[in-house]
């Protein structure tokens, strides 16, 4: 039995496929769309279509980009001897926001998770090893790879996997530190973070 006219049901069903959208949200979005004037809707439709047509993955680092290679990979002011490996494009944005990292990136588009059938072959890893050779990197020798995957069991396994892959090559492989958020009061840090911060303490 159809709750609404067929086109409406169809729209709700399609919206429900989006991550984080359940039946109620889909219904609300569908009704919003129906009430939206057509010219406004066109803007949305164009934006959706453009993102598919104009965005590609950077052939060097797998970042989302309009031009290939991406701005960061093409930049001469970046340090191409340091590569920061991240899970998702938005993790890269988080590192970029610090403005203190001057190296380049490698985006994996995921992390190892056998339960979700994501093995090493499903990650965008194939183009990482070739980048490490100077002849494929504008003559620059890569000196360090920073593993900035998430502090989850999956992120950790991914870092372990890449670490094992790179260690024999003799370059410096580092893992980002875990611990206290800066600028917060000790009181407000959860026990797990505090525990990690304590065991990763350093001498001053």
């Amino acid at each position, binding site marked *: 039995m159809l709750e609404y006219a067929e086109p409406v049901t169809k729209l709700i069903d399609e919206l429900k496929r989006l991550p984080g959208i359940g039946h109620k949200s889909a219904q609300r979005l569908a009704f919003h769309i129906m009430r939206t004037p057509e010219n406004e809707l066109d803007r949305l439709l164009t934006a959706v279509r453009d993102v598919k047509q104009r965005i590609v993955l950077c052939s060097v680092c797998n970042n989302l980009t309009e031009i290939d290679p991406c701005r960061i990979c093409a930049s001469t002011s970046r340090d191409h001897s340091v590569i920061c490996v991240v899970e998702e494009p938005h993790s890269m944005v988080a590192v970029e926001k610090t403005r203190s990292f001057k190296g380049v990136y490698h985006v994996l588009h995921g992390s*190892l998770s*056998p339960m979700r059938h994501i*093995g090493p072959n499903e990650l965008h890893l194939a183009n990482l090893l070739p980048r490490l050779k100077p002849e494929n990197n504008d003559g620059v020798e890569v000196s360090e790879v920073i593993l900035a995957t998430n502090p989850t*069991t999956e992120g*950790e*396994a991914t870092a*372990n996997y890449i670490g*094992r892959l790179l260690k024999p090559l003799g370059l410096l492989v580092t893992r980002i530190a875990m611990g206290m958020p800066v600028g917060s009061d000790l009181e407000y840090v*959860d026990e797990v973070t505090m*525990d990690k911060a304590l065991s990763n303490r350093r001498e001053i």
Partner: protein
Amino acid sequence: MILDFVEVDNFRNLSGKIFWGPGLNIIHGDNGQGKTNWLEAIHLLSRTKSFRTQRLQETIRFGQDSAFVAGRVSSGDDLQRDLRVTLKENTKSIAVNGKREQLTRYLGQLQVFSFTADQLDVVRGMPEARRHFIDRGVASLRPAYVRTVSDYNRVIKQKNRILQDNLEHNRSLVELQDLLAPWNQQLVQLAAEIHEARVDYTERLNNELERSLFEPAELHIRYSSSLDGKGDLSNYEGLLNERLQLRLPAEAAAGRALLGPHRDDLAVHLAGRELRVFGSSGQQRSALLLLDLAAISVYNSWHDDRPLFLVDDVDAELDENRIRRLLEYLEGRTQTFITTSKRSHVEGFISRANVYEIAAGQAVQPELNRSTFSAVAAND
């Protein structure tokens, strides 16, 4: 810490407020009147979970759409906090002093140890229940330990999936080892943490155990690692790594993870014999009580604070003699809540305890009904 009062609305068949005594609280009533519901309410207030059901919706009184359990906890000299758990359809909200609070910050405000029917698996059931018992104990000392265990379980799940899928793919052992390596690396670290924490906790329990509170036969416990007898356990990480290498073909053939603390157990012996197999029901119950009492002592010496102790159905399988020893032991140590349907079993303690008569979920306050008590006693 002391629970001063509990106020309940529409939680199962309960509504109303009970002021508790700081020592022994005896909840008495016929079957089906709601004695255990009061313990469940206290447990919910402490852990935001029930010991009877996973589905908290079931605890909302039929026909109502929400329920709450609130209470005041006193600790230190003059510190009082009002806790409140509100259940509405399938959501749960928690508050301290009227303000919403995150779960991680809420837990621990009211620490409860409970002796309930679902805990009997610790002395009767499979090793899993005993591992849970130790893990809960460790977490009562160090809450961050919960994360270690959940990370470990997740790593095991991921590893199991690789091994399961491999049963169909039949990769070479070298290939399989490559796939497993990033998970085994974490497994070893987390396993070592868990092993160390559990051994340490078992040691603490052993030091506090009142071995022969109930009977002359002594109760002994020992953490029994699945790596016992396989090598030097003092270098746990090294040994586990070695065993993982060695047993790779076995894990490949079995299609699941065979090594790690998820295969460990707590050995519980009474008079030198395995309690789970040879103990009588009464002996098993008594042993579980001893383990609970030890866990309370360990908590007490770690935090310098007394948790609450809930004992459901104290008279089931425990004779009067054992109940008397238990209550004498608890007297002056920790705020205790026990339910019983047999008044005669606790008769000797009534003058030293607060006794609550429960009928149809409602409680009659001790101060208010002293005369009623003697009247009931006279009629008995």
